[in-house]
């Protein structure tokens, strides 16, 4: 009997497809559409150099004479430029592809940094406990009481003023990742700490300790897997927020420079032309940004409904 059923063990993907999560995903068209759009955007970002008809970072390909062409479906356009051109004469479509790449890269790296810091601190605080725990959590409270965006704006403004905009622009991408990455660690730390405290009481952790496993191994192998689903849910929201934060900072001129624009800086450069009628320089990157953030948020919502049994009941 058991031999028969085990002769074709279901593959990893089949198991996911058949599971409750898989079912809830299949039966939720919004989640399916969101994931598909997200994958398309990610692929476009990854393969931007192959897809884009022009290289927006190559000054030789940019001609100021081409500036402010409208998209092809509007009179006075140039068929070479699908979505028209920006104020410097760059092909908007190519610039958007490269910009999406930067926005996604910064968002993902910043959240990876947040997660790394937060999980490490959360594990330490929860596992070691005592004074270290109360100190770290006090720090998390204070950190959370300050808005990330505010901290980031002041940090970047001061950095920019200190180094001058030329040096700043050169390293802007690293500054953005670090400042967005460092400011939000308490989100992870609190969740992980709570799971650690809940898991620490359970027998298997005692068992592992009795068997002589070190605290490192117990934390990473036994406790961490149990906090994975809240970490997943937080991460989606955090990626969406990080992308918005990056765009906001770039819009204020405290992020990616116009020569190497992310979606935020592209919107910013177009804002000056909105009154003169060149709405597309702002509108098209804006739509891409909103769709990107929206699908991530929709996926996050779906994931929270599925993975959080408390809310799932409701």
């Amino acid at each position, binding site marked *: 009997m058991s031999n028969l059923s085990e002769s074709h063990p279901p593959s990893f993907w089949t198991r996911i497809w058949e599971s409750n999560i898989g079912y809830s995903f299949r039966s939720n068209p919004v989640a399916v559409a969101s994931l598909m759009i997200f994958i398309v955007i990610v692929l476009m970002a990854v393969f931007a150099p192959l897809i884009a008809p022009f290289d927006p970072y190559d000054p030789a390909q940019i001609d100021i004479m081409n500036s402010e062409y409208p998209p092809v479906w509007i009179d006075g356009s140039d068929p070479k430029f699908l979505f028209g051109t920006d104020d410097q004469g760059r092909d908007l479509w190519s610039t958007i592809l490269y910009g999406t790449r930067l926005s996604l890269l910064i968002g993902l790296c910043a959240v990876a940094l947040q997660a790394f810091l937060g999980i490490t601190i959360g594990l330490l605080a929860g596992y070691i406990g005592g004074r270290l725990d109360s100190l770290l959590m006090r720090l998390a409270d204070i950190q959370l*009481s300050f808005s990330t965006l*505010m901290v980031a*704006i002041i940090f970047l*403004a001061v950095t920019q003023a200190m180094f001058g905009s030329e040096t700043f622009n050169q390293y802007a991408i690293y500054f953005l990742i670090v400042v967005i990455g460092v400011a939000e660690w308490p989100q992870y730390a609190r969740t992980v700490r709570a799971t650690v405290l809940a898991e620490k009481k359970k027998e298997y952790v005692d068992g592992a300790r009795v068997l002589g496993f070190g605290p490192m191994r117990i934390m990473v192998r036994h406790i961490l897997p149990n906090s994975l689903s809240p970490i997943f849910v937080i991460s989606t929201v955090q990626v*969406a927020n990080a992308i918005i934060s990056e*765009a906001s900072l770039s819009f204020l001129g405290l992020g990616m420079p116009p020569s190497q624009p992310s979606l935020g800086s592209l919107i910013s450069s177009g804002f000056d032309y909105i009154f003169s009628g060149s709405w597309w320089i702002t509108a098209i990157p*804006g739509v891409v*940004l909103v769709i990107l*953030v929206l699908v991530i948020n929709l996926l996050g919502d779906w994931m929270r409904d599925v993975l959080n049994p408390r*809310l799932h009941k409701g």
Partner: protein
Amino acid sequence: MFAYLVKRVFQAAAVMFVISLIGFAIQDNLGDPLRELLGQSVSEEVRQELREELGLNDSFVTQYARFLGKALQGDLGTSYFFKEPALDVILKKLPATLELVLGATLIIVGLSVPLGVYTAIRPNTILSRIVMGISIVGISIPVFLTAILMIFLFSVELRWLPSYGRGDVVHVFGNWETNFASLDGWAHILLPSLALASIMLPLFIRLIRAEMMEVLQSEYVKYARAKGLWPWRIYFVHALKNTLLPVITVGGVQIGTMVAYTILTETVFQWPGMGFMFLEAVNRVDTPLIVAYLIVVGFIFVVTNTIVDLIYGLVNPTVNLARMGA
């Protein structure tokens, strides 16, 4: 109660101390005060003399002590650009920003509670679905983009509302001028407040809805039903009171966050508040003004958080403030 208050105030003071340290470090490293005072064509000897006179050669601790002493008396340095005390410059701009925050807060509080409660009680109606749909789109659009969209729609295309500035303001007292006293003032503050509220409002609707739905699952709500209470009493007394407690905590933090968003909103609408001023100060490397802004904003954050914590303690009967102080 008193012990808790003291503890909380002490903690707030500690945070302000750290902020002042950061502020001083910025002042110490950013820009050269001598160049601002003298220009570049001055001999090295004169410079050294002046450095000595200004105390720039003193130790870090001495210099910081002087900075802190002055700051406590309200002296946060003199703006290079305005040639005025930095604190005065900020206080002049403060009412504009506070009115913007007030307008947005009114919109958020007025709409988020009824909509959050409604979508929690009737999650499957068409209206609820529409509200939740708009909410998730709302949290996905950055504040500055909403602001641009509104300008494009209501100012450029429809020409209904002005796109920049404060319009006719009415003087109230001191340097406080208000937007809320004239029709033109209302017209000018409407779009910026809406834009500022645009990301917080959906956030609060979703927060209130989620909390309310969780509370509606609780045993005490089930028990309230078993007692045969009228539904409105279950929703608005039993459930809402428990829902709003955690919302107060989050709300306090978010009011602080709104100050950050004012920078974005004020930039788009060229609103003459302190956020707009701050970005100009950054572009002009007006160090005293940057530091003064940091300290004022830090102060606003610390004060709102402390007040919110105290309110939470007073509203929530299960928090024993007397015991927390111990």
